[in-house]
């Protein structure tokens, strides 16, 4: 069994003597006998490091990761290249192992990193204040709703675009049970939010309007135009964005957003089957004291040295308790640090260039794939790094055939949108070369052709499924 303890039998004897008990068992006396487990846990015995490694390597080998397959999956998390310095720095004990910086004098590294992160997010979103990060994307949407309720003096209604990530909409609905708030959803037209329907849905009871751009179908929304309705009724405009597009797309802060938030994974974080990553959350000056999460602020020490501390803690649960702006405590500091390093590595020029590269390769891929027999565009709206297609054959079987050729062709929209059973969402990153895009077109075409024939047979053998 691997243990990480140091107490030798001799140590234990000395320590028990100092405590004044005969055995450690005596220390557990305070637990009423019937509540003592009194048996070993029904878990295997501990094993050596080499064996644990083997065991986990075996499990890992049974996943088709983005090295094993060419990955066109997106839907909120993307296969970007994470520079080596990100791992090298975030794996340093000094960043990896401390707790939340409650003692600023010995936590300047983490606190300054938070301050730099806030600055970077503020720049990306063109909004003046950012927190130091939240759990991840969808729950950040729910946190914005909580803020809106607090700010919205009694308003208990949210208007949400169907273009908002399904996980975000579902998470918001979950939280709203506790918020005692209602949600009105506005549909999509030609891939983007139905402007008329949105305008009609917003009213004086609306605490906030939620948009996403690019939306789940990859379409870039005209946030400013759509946001007018929110402004008109004094509702907060909350916009979820893909941070990797903000080098080229007009930032929420310039489109009238009160809050910009989103999933931070594309910035320096690996896929990790969905987490840990982080959520970013920026807002207008007025919202500073209503923000959820940690915020690092600049100050001086007694000798006048510049330093950083956790600012505005009076918002937080450990001070304000039931009146706190949020319940969050442990967040995702290390993931936010990874993002900060990645952004510094890309730099002003590199970040813009990356955005341009995504837009151009995506345009190429969209055209290339749309030209494939059996494939057509699901919508014609402008896109940045992801786009939706309609396939002339059952999507699952087509994906299966592509997978057999080592390609994860994309995300089947039918999983989340019954109206798009034939939809496929394809994501592009700088790691997806032109060659890989051409191979995808080839594979898709072949799969659709093959499927078009043998629908019946195929789907029969499929049904119950199994690995």
């Amino acid at each position, binding site marked *: 069994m691997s243990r990480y303890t140091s107490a030798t039998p001799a140590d234990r004897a000395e320590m028990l003597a100092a405590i004044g008990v005969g055995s450690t068992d005596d220390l557990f006396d305070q637990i009423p006998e019937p*509540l003592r487990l009194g048996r070993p846990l029904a878990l295997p015995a501990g094993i050596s490091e080499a064996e644990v490694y083997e065991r986990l390597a075996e499990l890992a080998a049974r996943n088709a990761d983005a090295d094993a397959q060419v990955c066109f999956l997106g839907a*909120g998390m993307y296969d970007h290249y994470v520079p080596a*310095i990100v791992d090298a720095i975030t794996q340093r004990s000094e960043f990896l192992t401390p707790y939340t910086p409650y003692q600023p004098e010995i936590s300047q590294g983490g606190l300054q990193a938070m301050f730099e992160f806030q600055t970077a997010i503020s720049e990306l979103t063109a909004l003046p204040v950012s927190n130091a990060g939240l759990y991840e994307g969808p729950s950040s949407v729910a946190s914005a709703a909580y803020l809106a309720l607090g700010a919205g003096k009694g308003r208990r209604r949210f208007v949400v675009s169907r273009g908002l990530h399904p996980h975000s909409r*579902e998470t918001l609905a979950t939280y709203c049970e506790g918020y005692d708030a209602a949600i009105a959803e506005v549909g999509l037209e030609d891939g983007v939010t139905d402007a008329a329907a949105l305008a009609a849905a917003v009213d004086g009871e609306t605490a906030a309007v939620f948009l996403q751009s690019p939306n789940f179908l990859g379409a870039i929304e005209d946030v400013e135009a759509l946001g007018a309705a929110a402004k008109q009724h004094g509702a907060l405009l909350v916009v979820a964005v893909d941070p990797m597009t903000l080098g080229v797309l007009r930032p929420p802060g310039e489109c009238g957003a009160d809050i910009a938030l989103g999933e931070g994974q594309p910035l320096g974080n690996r896929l990790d089957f969905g*987490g840990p990553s982080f959520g970013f959350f920026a807002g207008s000056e007025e919202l500073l004291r209503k923000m959820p999460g940690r915020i690092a*602020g600049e100050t001086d020490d007694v000798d006048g040295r510049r330093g950083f501390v956790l600012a505005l803690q009076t918002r937080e649960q450990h001070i304000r308790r039931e009146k706190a702006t949020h319940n969050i405590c442990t967040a995702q500091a290390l993931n936010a640090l990874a993002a900060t390093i990645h952004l510094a590595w*890309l730099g002003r020029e590199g970040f*813009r260039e990356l955005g341009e590269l995504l837009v151009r390769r995506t345009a190429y891929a969209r055209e290339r794939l749309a030209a494939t027999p059996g494939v057509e565009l699901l919508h014609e709206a402008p896109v940045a790094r992801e786009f939706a297609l309609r396939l002339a054959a059952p999507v699952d079987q087509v994906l299966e055939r592509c997978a057999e050729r080592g390609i994860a062709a994309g995300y089947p929209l039918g999983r989340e949108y019954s109206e798009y059973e034939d939809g496929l969402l394809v994501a592009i990153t700088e790691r997806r070369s032109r060659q890989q895009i051409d191979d995808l077109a080839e594979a898709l075409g072949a799969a659709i052709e093959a499927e078009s024939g043998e629908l019946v047979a195929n789907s029969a053998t499929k049904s119950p499924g199994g690995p």
Partner: protein
Amino acid sequence: MPVDEIPMQRERAQTIFEKSKIGRRAGILPAAEVPEPPLEELIPARLLRAEPPRLPEVAEPEIVRHYNRLSRRNFDLDSGFYPLGSCTMKHNPRLNERVAALPGHARLHPAQDPRRAQGALELIWLLQESLAEICGLPHVSLQPSAGSHGELAGLLLTRAFHADRGEARTKVLAPDTSHGTNPASVTMAGYEIVKVATDERGGVEMDDLRAKVDDEVACLMLTNPNTLGLFDENIAEIASLIHAVGGTLYYDGANLNAVMGQSRPGDMGFDIVHVNLHKSFSQPHGGGGPGAGPIAVSERIEPFLPRPQVVRREGGNGSGPYFDLDHERPRSIGRLRGFQGNFGVFVRSYAYILSLGADGLAEASETAVLNANYLKARLAEGRAGKYLPVAFERHCMHEFVLSGKPMKRQLGIATLDLAKRLLDFGFHPPTVYFPLLVEEALMIEPTETETKESLDAFADAVEQILAEAEAGPEKAKEAPYTTPVRRLDEVKATRRPVVRQPL
């Protein structure tokens, strides 16, 4: 010997943005390989950004130096004793980082077809099973991202549970010693918090509890051992009181490190438990996350667990069992976040459980309790015993709370001063001013991975600081002296907040 300024202090803080110089860069990108029309031809100009964000322009060598030097301005667990109460700062095995980084884990897309993510789903399932056994409750969801997220999940489960029975209850009880996330979660879940008093043994004041228990009570949230590090001996009676009125019992698992393999929340009568994988199960804290807050629940709560749930299915036509994401949960409270939770954290914690196994986990808790009681004994001697009495005089579990009240009155130094002076001795201070009901509280959790030598050195440092203070309070009141920066003006940071680098 002439002394120069301490190197760390000589080096003034400068952000990466301030090191930026136009024209410098680190990363470069692959060639486009595709046609490169002006962006306006692909996206309407009004949707495009005029000026790129003003990110820093710095070459790679300087980025590396910037963050390496910055890192040294942190105190960390791999450098010294970190007895931060309630945070379980135990050793973070590097093995866990290694296995989490395997491409099969780290590079797996969350939307991958479950049939091609069987290893990941099995790992999740195995961790669910392990936590169920450790907590003594049959069902587990790993979705919550941290303890506070688990609390909210638990309260929404409670709400769904009552709603399902046609009830709308309004109150949630929690002791006055409870952690701040508890009341904050209660409010977010739409409930009203009701505080329960603490008795002279440090447990729940039973009369106060009885007085407050009624059929408006949706749930009682307890930490056991509680934030005083004390196990509530009345837990059985407490449980029956709550269950009698139909409420649920929620276990804040932040202190699970005291009872792994020793006693199980489920056996104590709890319906819902959250586990902080970044405490008891060795996920590094990362300076404030990431973590994970899985929840374990009883049969009656199970139908309401978040979607999707990882399940093990028997394979059709002879093929073996396989693992799947179950989205068909009609009574589920729904999602709490995207995808499947903080999987990378699950890998680390599962590796930790495999490493220690049944006996290792039990030994970890046993040693955590031993270390805490030993340090408590050491601090009952000499000056510490005189100026820093323990808040509740009985054996503790994995942590204990001292009161700096006599120290403040007799020596004129506050708990904060003691904490700051400890920094000069190379120790991370304990948690201070929590729990609230103990005046000038010092909450000390050594964890099982510390040596006796570390505990002794810490006790000696406290003794020395108190001795200094007997000679006069100044030394401690002006401390720290040797840290990268000295005491910071926190009021200024809140009064005139500067929360980003002006550019």
